[in-house]
């Protein structure tokens, strides 16, 4: 299973995997979150929901079926025990609290649990797809993202600057440096990733945060 974690994305995906329990219904965003199942222990089986209309999403094996794609439009498979449905039902599952965990990327997260990940005005306006429904309806919202933007700025802020995907929706942030929980009192630093110091996290995080006493 977990051998050496060579890059930040693997470190993040491996840590997110520890948040998932056997039997959880999970929706994974495009990109980094799709790496999470690679790090699940053998006795933890989760059921992946694909927003385009099924549960039991599996990896592509064998021949490509042009009618079977994942939420990124990539060829995929359905595992035994899976089920297809229409988009209405898919979002009834999502909005209705039948998805235990959603893992998605972020551009910014702030101390009130606000998430921005769907547009950068003037630069990137792809549309929100299913993200706004997912963060509104999933029981637990985990943002899996690199700690800083490509330009080195912090993505963990006191207040988001970009247009929001959801207001007060984030439960947890996992980065390659640390794990934060969002509480009524703001961010709580729960864990440092292996070999990362508290000073490094302070230096690279714009938002104020409380340090879990267990870390001090």
């Amino acid at each position: 299973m977990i051998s050496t974690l060579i890059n930040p994305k693997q470190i993040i995906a491996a840590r997110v995997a520890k948040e998932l329990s056997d039997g959880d219904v999970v929706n994974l965003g495009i990109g980094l979150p799709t790496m999470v199942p690679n790090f699940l222990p053998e006795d933890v089986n989760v059921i992946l929901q694909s927003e385009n209309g099924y549960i039991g999403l599996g990896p592509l094996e064998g021949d490509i079926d042009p009618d079977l794609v994942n939420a990124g439009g990539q060829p995929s498979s359905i595992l035994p025990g899976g089920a297809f449905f229409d988009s209405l039902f898919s979002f009834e599952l999502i909005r209705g609290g039948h998805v235990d965990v959603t893992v998605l990327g972020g551009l910014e997260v702030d101390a009130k649990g606000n998430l921005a990940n769907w547009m950068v005005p003037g630069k990137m306006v792809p549309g929100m797809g299913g993200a706004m429904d997912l963060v509104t309806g999933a029981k637990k919202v985990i943002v899996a993202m690199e700690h800083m933007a490509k330009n080195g700025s912090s993505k963990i802020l006191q207040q988001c600057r970009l247009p929001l995907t959801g207001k007060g929706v984030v439960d947890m942030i996992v980065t390659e440096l640390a794990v934060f929980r969002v509480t009524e009192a703001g961010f709580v630093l729960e864990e440092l990733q292996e070999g990362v110091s508290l000073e490094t996290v302070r230096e690279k995080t714009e938002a104020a945060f409380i340090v879990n006493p267990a870390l001090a």
Partner: protein
Amino acid sequence: MNKMISMEEVSTLFTDGMTIMAGGFMGVGTPQELVSAMLEANVRDITLIANDTAFTETGVGPLIVNRRVKKVIASHIGTNPETGRQMIAGELEVELVPQGTLAERVRAGGSGLGGVLTPTGVGTVVEEGKEKITVDGREFLLEKPLRAEVALLKAYKADKAGNLIYHRSARNFNPLMALAADTVIVQVEQIVEIGDIDPDEVMTPGILVDKIFVQGGCQS
């Protein structure tokens, strides 16, 4: 009633300025031959309702690329760069709608509802211009119904009464849109006789389907 239709007849069903719904998720479950028929019919200024604008060469994407659309209502336009380009240039109006809200709005349009109350989008730009209603202390947005003059569906199999079976993830928005348009046209891979589909297996009942086009143009 004969619902079977040829490609020539399909192309007569469109007029300029129409509102059209099309099933599909990134082109999967989109009736590609019906989209081609629209292109050949040279229909213009359409309002397009679809989950996404797919890719430049597949799904509903070619309608955007060939400038047949004046307004699109969709949840995602990122995989077709031409949509974003036309939007930024002011050539195309784009209304972005959260995917679950889009599904509910189509449902409302097809099921006689005046709208739906959803928590999705509260506190975001999606709430701008919309009525907010508080129910038991929680805020919801009133999202209004969507209907179209024509819905273009893709199914795997139909009987001649129009009863439909979809295949895999190609189902997506198709069953919803079957309820929400004045004229419903379906493109199918297989056509069978009435009675050949077990009523338990029907996913969209034939009473909703007006016209059946068999992929490749063959009528039986």
